[in-house]
């Protein structure tokens, strides 16, 4: 989960990293109470990068300008994400803009430090940052990082300060469950003093059990979703809405992607990534059906589950119960296999349900059903 800039900077200040003296405003009214000095930067608060390039950062020279900028930025949407606040900060005279981050890299078995002497909004178009891979906090050695930085950073005062800063970012990542802590630009003020002009922090959703603020943020992000989706996410289903019309209820991330790809290759369009493996219970599967049944753009539902720890005779019984209960007339295609799958034909047979022999068969049936439903809508029959 990506923090807003002002939240990220609060975390940085907590380990003694200097940031601009800013004010967060949530409405135009908040401005009245502030004693602002100009010029300043007004920055929209959304949880995504590239705000500067997309008009989310405005330079402001006076009180009137501040009013206008705040009003405008509070109404701004970037990639469909509504602004949640505006951060007002002094417009600083920077001598240079650097890039410094700590992030998780599987190939390093843990954390890596990335540095570029040319930061700012165009960091991605320049030479790639230099990389130091300590893996874990305990393995960090400033002298090793110094060797990595020396060929690209010739100002020794700046370089030594970057070393100290890198350790703090790594501490933050390792002790506060951050997957990425990025400062870009890292500003150089007079006399080589460093300041975090912008900050991006991604915290680890999996650490919610020991970080109440992560848990709270995840829960409040669910609240932004419409009801059936919110309930499914609360029920620990892993769900990503895609653009197609073939609903997919699946188990296991790799298997779900494999079936999405087969739907795509068969000329269909998957409507979602929906992995129920974290909650393979009657209530989990009910939530999945309720969500897909309620989505008018989904024409058919394909259930594809290959269970290991999940016992498939139980899943089959739950599917029979759900088929008895549900009101939707959307067709459902099944392909269940795995532990105790030999009991499925008897359980399905009593209700007249069919379990497809292969995923390919099930995908073909589902894509055909979606296509004929689409054709009937285009033909004006419904």
């Amino acid at each position: 989960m990506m923090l807003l800039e002002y939240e990220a900077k609060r975390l940085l200040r907590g380990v003694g990293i200097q940031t601009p003296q800013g004010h967060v405003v949530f409405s135009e009214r908040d401005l009245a109470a502030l004693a602002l000095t100009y010029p300043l930067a007004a920055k929209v608060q959304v949880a995504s990068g590239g705000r500067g390039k997309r008009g989310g950062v405005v330079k402001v020279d006076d009180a009137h300008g501040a009013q206008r900028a705040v009003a405008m930025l509070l109404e701004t949407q970037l990639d469909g994400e509504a602004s949640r606040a505006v951060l007002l900060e002094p417009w600083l005279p920077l001598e240079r803009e650097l890039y410094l981050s700590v992030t998780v890299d599987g190939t390093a078995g843990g954390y890596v430090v990335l540095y570029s002497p040319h930061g700012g909004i165009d960091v991605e178009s320049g030479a790639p940052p230099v990389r130091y891979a300590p893996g874990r906090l305990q393995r960090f050695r400033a002298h090793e990082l110094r060797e990595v930085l020396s060929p690209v950073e010739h100002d020794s005062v700046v370089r030594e300060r970057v070393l100290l800063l890198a350790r703090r970012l790594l501490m933050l990542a390792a002790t506060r469950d951050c997957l990425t802590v990025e400062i870009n630009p890292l500003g150089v003020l007079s006399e080589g003093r460093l300041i975090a002009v912008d900050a991006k922090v991604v915290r680890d959703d999996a650490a919610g059990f020991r970080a109440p603020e992560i848990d709270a943020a995840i829960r409040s992000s669910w609240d932004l979703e419409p009801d059936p989706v919110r309930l499914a996410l609360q029920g620990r289903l892993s769900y990503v809405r895609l653009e197609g019309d073939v609903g997919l209820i699946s188990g296991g991330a790799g298997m779900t992607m494999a079936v999405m790809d087969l739907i795509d290759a068969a000329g269909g369009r998957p409507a979602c990534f929906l992995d129920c493996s974290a909650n393979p219970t009657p209530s989990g599967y009910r939530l999945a059906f309720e969500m897909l049944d309620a989505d008018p753009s989904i024409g058919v539902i394909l259930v594809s589950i290959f269970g290991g720890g999940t016992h498939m005779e139980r899943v089959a019984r739950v599917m029979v119960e759900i088929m008895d209960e549900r009101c939707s007339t959307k067709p459902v295609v099944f392909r269940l296999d795995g532990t105790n799958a030999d009991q499925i034909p008897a359980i399905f047979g009593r209700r007249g349900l069919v379990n497809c022999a292969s995923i390919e068969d099930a995908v073909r049936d589902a894509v055909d059903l979606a296509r004929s439903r689409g054709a009937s809508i285009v033909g004006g029959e419904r």
Partner: protein
Amino acid sequence: MSVLLDAEKSVVIQGITGKMGRFSARDLMEYGTKVVAGTAPGRGGSSVEGVPVFESVAAAVRGTGADTALTYVPAAAALDAVLEALDAGCRLVVYPGDGLPVADAIEMRAAAKERGAVLLGPNTPGLISPGRAKLGFMPSTCFAPGPLGVISRSGSLSYEVSKRLTVAGLGQTTVIGIGGDPVKGLTAGEALALLHADPETTGIVYLGEIGGGDEYDIAAYTSHPDAKPTAALVVGRSAPPGRKMGHAGALVSSRRDTHEAKMQALLEAGVYATASMAALVPLVREMMHYES
């Protein structure tokens, strides 16, 4: 021969009194795995499925000679449980659980390396040496003994593909679930090195996905002149960029993470690579026929 696991390994199940632990104890023993002990703090002295339960892994090792651990505990307790198994001297530890914070995965991985032990996981069904032993919760019926070494980032995908291979008469020496998280114990590259050194394994099948860098280890291996023939399935071609597809590691955040870049690297290295699960088994058959 198989890698990592055979019928001689003595297994302790941490959390044996839980639902998964109890099921797994019976399932593993039915398959021929030597399950010699379980642990459940506060329940020492009892037994599950005839297996004695100890207070700690150290006590289990002292009492039974266990050398291998299978760890069924919730994410919040996982790091401590894995460290306990390593401290007690277990040389192979499987942690199947998902939802583990990355910071804990980093510590687990480092602790296993420090001791020269092998950690599998997090987020894996475990591993199986068909016909010999299994250490995890994969459905036994999918697998049969044979010449292939299989490495997978995804559990259910490995069941489906292994079943297809088995039905096609292509059995396996060892099927290794390395897991879907970005930081893990045994990596694809390390699993490859084990399979490379195993004389019974004459072909390798790798099941990968978008995100992360494991696929590049496969490509690097296959570029070596003495590499064993290798086939790969990479799933996630139809997944949109920037969205996490269930697995914490299945996220395209750069060009290198994309399906296209990975397929290109694998094909250029000489891997029998495909994007389609339907095409994989015919491709493996062709590989094994052509290369022998």
